[in-house]
């Protein structure tokens, strides 16, 4: 088949949307059409709900959907990470069972990787899966699990071999979250929100057909999930629809977005709210204080250069040029921006920095910044881990000598369920 031209693609999709798009359809009804036709994920293989469309042509599809405000397949939360992982490592049965319901949004998913004893060192997981002859029996605890309380399925990384070296003893499963052996509890953070959960497994059951890829290959599969997490901001990507759009499908989409985005409502505060600084400095009169002005300037320098550094990385990527070191620095830069913003907000608010809720500046928003910023330099990889990655992968510096080689059973660990 000849590759489709941009013009043909646009014509074909336009015609399809004209005869199928209906703002008064139900969300699931419409997304089922998208999934069956391949227009929901056109860059996926045509065999699996896609159209084999080259990635370079995808922007045209996005444009055409946006042009008429057509709703897309479900993309928020970690759905697409699950989908990408199953697409790459799942078998045919798993693909046909899970992928359509991910795209329609009927099923929600969660990612069960981090544990109380393994944060930065994810491969040190000690949640165990033991085969009892018919099923995998799971025991242990996961943490920092977004949306676990309403998830239907979980992507589980568990240890299946304690005699193999650390990375080789892990396996990857899809676990049914609706079962007696799985218990989900909210995890309250220092800023008062509970955006994540702790998930406890007590003899939870996974059927053998829900093992993804082969036993012992779990680390590699988990890397696929994490790679997609880093590559796309999908988890936080939401559609911003005009409020005046009417139709059943928009109402349903708004409800879905609200549910998915609920845990992230304090994320802007965690980044430091640089946007509020000038306004706050002006209304408090602190803009006239030379010391505060210096601190604001330092913040603005950090914020602008971080933004430009990210744009340099993107521009290099778009031109297909080799990405320079600027691509690995964004997360560390964001930590610096958030910390400086927190410092500046404190300088501006003075004693009012002690007050929260209705008593605090901006009805508690400033207080929320001050107690949320510490998350920035921890979540998604601590600054220290980022520095290791930059030093080793970008600057080519040697690794620390390892203490965790040999059978995992013998590696020093945090207290937890015994091997």
């Amino acid at each position, binding site marked *: 088949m000849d590759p489709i031209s941009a013009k043909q693609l646009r014509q074909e999709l336009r015609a399809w949307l004209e005869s199928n798009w209906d703002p008064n359809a139900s969300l699931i009804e419409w997304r089922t059409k998208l999934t069956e036709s391949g227009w929901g994920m056109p860059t996926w293989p045509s065999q699996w709900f896609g159209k084999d469309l080259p990635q370079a042509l995808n922007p045209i599809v996005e444009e055409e959907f946006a042009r008429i405000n057509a709703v897309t397949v479900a993309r928020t939360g970690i759905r697409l990470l699950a989908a990408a992982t199953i697409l790459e490592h799942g078998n045919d049965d798993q693909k046909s069972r899970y992928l359509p319901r991910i795209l329609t949004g009927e099923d929600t998913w969660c990612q069960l990787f981090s544990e109380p004893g393994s944060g930065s060192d994810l491969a040190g997981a000690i949640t165990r899966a033991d085969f009892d002859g018919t099923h995998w029996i799971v025991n242990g605890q996961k943490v920092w699990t977004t949306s676990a309380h309403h998830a239907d399925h979980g992507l589980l990384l568990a240890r299946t071999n304690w005699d193999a070296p650390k990375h080789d003893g892990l396996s990857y499963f899809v676990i049914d979250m609706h079962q007696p052996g799985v218990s989900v509890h909210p995890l309250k953070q220092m800023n008062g929100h509970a955006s994540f959960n702790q998930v406890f497994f007590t003899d939870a059951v996974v059927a053998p057909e829900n093992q993804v890829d082969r036993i012992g290959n779990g680390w590699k599969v988990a890397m696929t999930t994490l790679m997609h997490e880093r590559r796309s901001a999908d988890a936080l990507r939401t559609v911003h629809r005009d409020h005046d759009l009417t139709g059943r499908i928009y109402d349903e989409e708004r409800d879905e977005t609200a549910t998915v985005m609920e845990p992230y409502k304090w994320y802007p505060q965690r980044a430091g709210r640089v946007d509020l600084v*000038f306004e706050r400095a002006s209304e408090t009169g602190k*803009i006239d204080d*030379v010391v505060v*002005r*210096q601190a*604001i*300037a*330092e913040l*603005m*320098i*950090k914020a*602008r*250069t*971080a933004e*430009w*550094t990210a*744009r*340099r990385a*993107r*521009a*290099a990527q778009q*031109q297909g*040029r080799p990405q*320079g*070191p*600027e691509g690995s*620095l964004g997360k*560390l*830069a964001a930590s*610096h921006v958030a910390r400086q913003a927190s410092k500046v907000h404190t300088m501006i608010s003075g004693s009012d920095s002690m007050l929260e809720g209705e008593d605090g500046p901006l009805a508690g928003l400033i207080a929320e910044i001050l107690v949320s910023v510490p998350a920035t330099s921890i979540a998604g990889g601590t600054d*220290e881990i*980022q*520095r*290791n990655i*930059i*030093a*080793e992968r*970008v*600057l*080519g*510096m*040697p*690794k*620390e*000598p390892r203490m965790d080689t040999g059978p995992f059973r013998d590696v020093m660990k945090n207290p937890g369920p015994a091997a």
Partner: protein
Amino acid sequence: MQFTFNEEQDQLRATAQKFLADKSPTVEVRRIMATTEGYDPAVWTQLSSELGFTATHIPEAYGGLGLSYAELGIVFEEMGRSLLCAPFFATSLAATAVMNVATESEKSDLLPNIATGNRIATFAVFETAGKWGSDSIKLSAENNRLNGIKRYVLDGHIADLLIVVARTNDGNESDGIGFFLIDGNAPGLRRRLVNTVDATRKLSELEFVDVTARRLGGDGDQTAKLEDTLDLAAIALANEMVGGAQRLVDETVKYAVERIQFGRAIGSFQAIKHKCADMLLDVEMAKSAAYYAAAAAASHDPELPALASLAKASASEAFTRIAAECIQIHGGIGFTWDNDTHLWFKRAKSSEVFFGDPTYHKEQLINRWQH
């Protein structure tokens, strides 16, 4: 706004890198910095009349290459990386000043000789320690006769042409700032090379006693032109600084990987690795600002004054931090005269306070964004 370099720009960088690596290894830097002149005439001829670096941002109509400030930034970055000892900054800045203020005929008269490097030129503006703004100009120009003092003048002791900023005192309403041209050997001009921490940048003090000068660009207050020239100087300097800073990051990582203590490369210790990662972050952020400001100068962005201050403050802090960490990671050897790192450490120091220190530029940044 452009966020990557194009092929021609990459080519320009490669040409400059190759030439400078060849002509300005540290052994040459050490030789030339010990001379009074502070440059090698043969290398100057090559980089100007042969390679055209002095012609980079001068329009083609005046014998230049007609490239933009983005390309000039690349050349400056490479000069900073190699620590080239030559009156390049002085001459390039004088060209910027002439391009900003002079009339067509003055440009036709002056720029071709600057573009070819036949004339070494400089820009004399500062007078007082810690004052970098147009309001600090006191040198008096009365009926085109200059009286007063200029300090921290780059290569002022060897310059053939000097563009001097003065306060006009002709009793007119248009009195204010004026740009004047004098010859290096003008009667009444006394030039003295001053002792500097950074011997790779030659600075001089100039004393003017009734020096007859030629006003450039006609009558009228040229304060705005001065401020624009200073902004462009800060951007050029910021680009030069990120080049030096990157060189130090490279040298530091190289040393940390080679140096063995406690039976392992010191670069395998997180204490060292993390410092190196922070140095890389510092230099890349400062580069983003320097590149952005240079591109803004090329496109006449109205935000330019704020961006110039941002780039200069960012580069100053990055370069001085990196230089200090570089010596720290080198340990004892880093504090010896024979080790090359102090050459860039001193360049970082001299650059930090040249054309405005970080405190000054941070205040300017807020001030400029407020208005």
